């Protein structure tokens, strides 16, 4: 073998090594470039990017395929609303699924109308009016409004209830987060403006029910019987969403007609008894 060919082998080998090094370097650069690019993208996407990671993985891997994007979106909304820790802020996608909130009957022995409200929700106003019409058909001498355990404070339902008992004037005030205050009033007239009323309260009466109780007493329309209330005192408004579903959102704290706060304060009864005994006590009071 000549020196020359030996030399060219060495040169060739050196060139080959140099080429390999350059190519490896180039590969590494490309790899790193994409890695950095991706890390940057993730960082820029903000905290919510984790949600999209989860969404994508579920879409790609979930056994049997995930439910529709709409169902998953509702799920995400329900989850996010749950993080507010407020049971009355909800999304309703099917109003037919709402359970009735008002029960009414006549206590025949005493000729007293009895209305219990489980929750001041979106349909409560209409249900309440239907109950009131029943009493009009079978005239009663007095009314017991059972607000024991009543939660929620859908603004229009709260107004409807007060409107039945009050002949015009102030119903309550709502104070929004930005400090803005809105006065809700009653229409003149009303189905039960002349009947004596007893309102039953318990430790877990909250929201609009507290404003109803406080206002009825201030306006001289009711005796409050039972236990001091929770002091939740917040109210919900409804927002129609673009897909036809409705968002019920806690938007305000309530004040009574005389501008007394119930949020964080609650309402104390006129006649303090255990909430379980409140109905019997109220019947006694109304008989007098």
């Amino acid at each position: 073998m000549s020196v020359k060919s030996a030399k060219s082998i060495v040169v060739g080998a050196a060139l080959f090594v140099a080429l390999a090094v350059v190519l490896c370097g180039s590969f590494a650069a490309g790899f790193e470039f994409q890695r950095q690019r991706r890390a940057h993208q993730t960082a820029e996407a903000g905290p919510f990017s984790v949600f999209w990671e989860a969404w994508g993985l579920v879409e790609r891997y979930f056994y049997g395929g995930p439910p529709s994007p709409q169902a998953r979106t509702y799920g995400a909304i329900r989850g996010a609303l749950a993080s507010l820790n407020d049971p009355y802020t909800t999304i309703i996608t099917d109003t037919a699924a709402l359970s009735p909130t008002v029960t009414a009957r006549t206590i025949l022995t005493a000729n007293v109308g009895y209305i219990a409200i489980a929750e001041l929700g979106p349909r409560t106003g209409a249900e309440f009016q239907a109950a009131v019409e029943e009493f009009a058909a079978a005239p009663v001498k007095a009314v017991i409004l059972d607000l024991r355990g009543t939660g929620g404070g859908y603004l229009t339902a709260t107004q409807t209830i007060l409107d039945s008992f009050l002949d015009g004037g102030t119903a309550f005030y709502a104070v929004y987060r930005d400090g803005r205050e809105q006065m809700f009033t009653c229409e003149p007239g009303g189905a039960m403006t002349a009947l004596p009323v007893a309102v039953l309260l318990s430790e877990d009466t909250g929201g609009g029910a507290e404003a109803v109780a406080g206002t009825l007493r201030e306006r001289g329309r009711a005796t409050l019987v039972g236990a001091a209330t929770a002091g939740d005192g917040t109210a919900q408004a409804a927002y129609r969403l673009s897909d036809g579903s409705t968002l019920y959102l806690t938007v305000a704290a309530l004040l009574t007609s005389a501008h007394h706060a119930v949020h964080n304060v609650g309402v104390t009864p006129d006649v303090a008894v255990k909430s379980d005994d409140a109905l019997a006590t109220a019947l006694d009071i109304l008989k007098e």
Partner: protein
Amino acid sequence: MRNAVRFTLAALVLLVLIVGAFCAGFGTAYLLAENYLLPSPRVTVSPTTPPPTVATETAPAPTATPLPTVPLSEEDQETFQLFWEVWGLVQQYFYGDLPDMQQVTYAAIHGMLNSLDDPYTAFIEPQAAAIIAEDATGEFQGIGAYVEMDEESGKVIITGVFEGGPAEKAGLQEGDLISEVDGVSIVGKTLYEAIGLIRGPAGTSVTLLVEREGVDEPFEVTVVRAKLEIPIVEYKMLDDGVGYISLREFSATAEKNVREALEDLLSQEPVGIVLDLRQNPGGWLDQAIGVADLFLDDGTILIERWSDGQEKRYEAHPGDVGEEVPLVVLVNGGSASASEIVAGALQDRERATLIGETTFGKGSVQRPFTLGDGSELRVTIARWFTPNDRAIHGRGITPDIVVPWPEDAGPDEDPQLDRAVEYLLIASGQ
């Protein structure tokens, strides 16, 4: 002139090669992120997370696994606009404090997963994910106690201590309530936050404020942390010459621990072996396959099937220590997932007699993904079937000999184990 052309050509070729290599590197990183080459899909299989074991400092957040960025379809994005519509209203009008965006994100993920109606597809927040990942390795650094959250008091309750572990040495007992860790109250914290405080590097110490029934005042206990292996196997030679092995969960060392126990017992020439999988909630799939393989020479252990009908078979390999010895497997309603895989395989292959009660019935496969912020998403990806193609999910495995647990059983009684021993003795002709 010719040289110049040659040179240009060479330079061009070189350039093309360099650009090609760069693209190859870019593509590799991209594909890695697209998940084609994710580290082996280890599969978790616990229906309920095994009781978290107290021990190490807030373990370092695991490095994020490169994740597939599934491009969002426009339709999905459009549908999801409703979420922002709602959240916009909340931000504008909600009366009350808004949680920070990270909490909202996690809550949205939980809610989205709820819509799947599958309790095993789960999202685990970063701190809990780190602790669970550490536990799954089979060892951790801490005090060596099993803990749970006492719902009523919001404090951490000790449900057991490791034999000879630091907690036991320091005098901690089952039933003790921990209210403070190094002066920090844990009331209002999650279980995993509390565990994060209690765990820490071996050799360091931690001071716990402990409440104990019968002791009026809370008192302090200082424990020196150690590196501990989670005791998952207990074994012994019973009086009748029957070897007994109990496996608490299928963590990363399950196969190794069972094999060692088996080797020790077999050297004492037992009449047979009882493998106790009662109350074993599961763990890693590879460990389940490994444990089943210890007793099988060849053939199928498990069929994993995706919803599109594709399947994967896991096979046994000959040459293990436990392939000949007479075997009884004890199961009950708390035997789930990996336990059901082992029991189902050994029953179908007629390698063991199952005694006890029908198992839990969790035969779905979860694949864990680490998300960008260290949290973990477990997605149900497949179902499991026994070698004879029996579904495990929703059905469980029914034992060959059903022995219900009597309600009035005393603390030292174990009629299911007694039946297993009797069975092995009769089978061996003794």
